[in-house]
């Protein structure tokens, strides 16, 4: 499990990998929306897929698929749990 335990932006995750939210570096309305969706520090998130042109990325949060733009996902810091390729 290469890179496990490192702190990274959520956007850097490749599809299939699993991580745990460390902190949200967002503010305002978006921060509240993200919290509302259940993305809070400690939540386990799995990166599922990227859109056809690579931009919004779909993440699995508590069995719900949520798409985030990469700009927003870079502001969410996570701890990698697995790189996931073996887990896909």
């Amino acid at each position: 499990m290469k890179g496990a335990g490192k702190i990274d932006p959520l956007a850097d995750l490749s599809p299939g990998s699993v991580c745990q939210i460390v902190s949200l570096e967002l503010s305002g309305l978006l921060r509240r929306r993200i919290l509302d969706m259940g993305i809070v520090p400690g939540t386990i998130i799995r990166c599922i897929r990227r859109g056809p042109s690579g931009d919004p990325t779909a993440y699995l949060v508590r069995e719900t698929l949520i798409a985030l733009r990469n700009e927003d996902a870079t502001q969410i810091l996570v701890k990698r749990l697995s790189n996931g390729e073996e887990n896909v």
Partner: protein
Amino acid sequence: MRPLTPSGSLSDVCGKAESVRNSNLNSLSDQIVADIYGNAELITKQVLSKKKTHQKGLDQRLDDLVTSKWFGYPLMLLMLVIVFWITMEGANFPSRLIASGLFTFQDQLTLWFQWAGTPAWIHGILVLGVYRTLAWVVSVMLPPMAIFFPMFTLLEDSGYLPRIAFNMDHIFKKAKACGKQSLTMCMGFGCNAVGVTSCRIIDSPRERLIAILTNSFVPCNGRFPTLIIVTSIFIGGTFVPYSGFVTAFVISGLILSGIAVTLLVSRVLSVTILKGEPSSLVLELPSYRRPQIGAVIYRSMIDRTIFVLRRAVLAAAPAGAVIWILANTYLGQQSIIVSLAQALNPIGQLIGLDGFILLAFILGLPANEIVLPILLMSYLSTGYLQDLGSLDGLRNVLVNNGWTWLTAINVMLFSLFHWPCATTLLTTYKETGSKKWMFLSFIIPTIIGISVCFILTQVVRSLGLV
């Protein structure tokens, strides 16, 4: 704690207070939300047991297909063409059936009126005006709606629409707008007023306004019949065995150009009156589910088809009476409608239409559904009503009034790009709370429509193609 030092001004103090509040509030609110979710998770674990599966579910496999790099976009296009193809092929026969039924009943009505000895003008207003327009609207609109809306509701119910937003978001971001705008556009296919209301799902006020102002670039259900009929007559009809497919392709092409204009206008608005950068997107992609057929039929029939048809009928009935009066009141040598059309004719000709067409679009302001009926009524106001149930009869009426393929294309383009109907304008006013945005939502599509038709017409004419 540090002793307070006097600050420069009140706003400095307020600023400091705000920053202190924010820095604490975030961690506090995070803690609260995390606790709530923690509790919820605990409860869930106690009461729910789940089979753990490691294989890829159907959802994942479907998503692999519909959001894939290679198939994502073509698949959306294919869906579009298929939906319209089924709508057109399916609506053809029932439309004719309803038309012949209703027009036969019109003759019966006329007999009854004659038998009762009612004056000619009452018969004119009620039967030739109100009833005939209503018969038109119902026979032309009901079958395509009864097919299109359930199909659309099926797509909606299955969970495919959020995937469209997911696929399209990148493109909308480039236009500095929100991917959810593609959802409000999908709603616009049904009804632009509903589309405008649905813009509430967009969080950023700037992007919401963009979505509202551009919603009418998606042809609503009231404009489909016009597009479908004109395409079938002038384009599809020339490729006889494949007319359904050709028509579906042409209409899909029109819709694509509407989408292109939407993106362009969104982009232009973003650098002019609605300056700003694209904000965020949090889009939930619910799992696919098997649509409940009963609910789909109920919802699409009662909530949509009947709703839209009712609106069309309410607008068409008085419009039919007004048209009949305009067409049969003579000021000097000619009827009012002919005078009005002649006054509009120079402008109409400039953009490849004619005075009657322009008048029909103007009188169609209450509801786009009645544009074509009004046009036919005014074309026929002097002549005898022929067999309008068949496309050939319609084609004759239009060709006799000087239509060419260029007129047909211009009518379709103008139908796609012109002022939204009165309901949509009122809804825009209600949603934005400002007359300025309502006016912009009126003028932007109008300017685009006039310029597009003008340029096309002048180019085609100067090349001598018509």
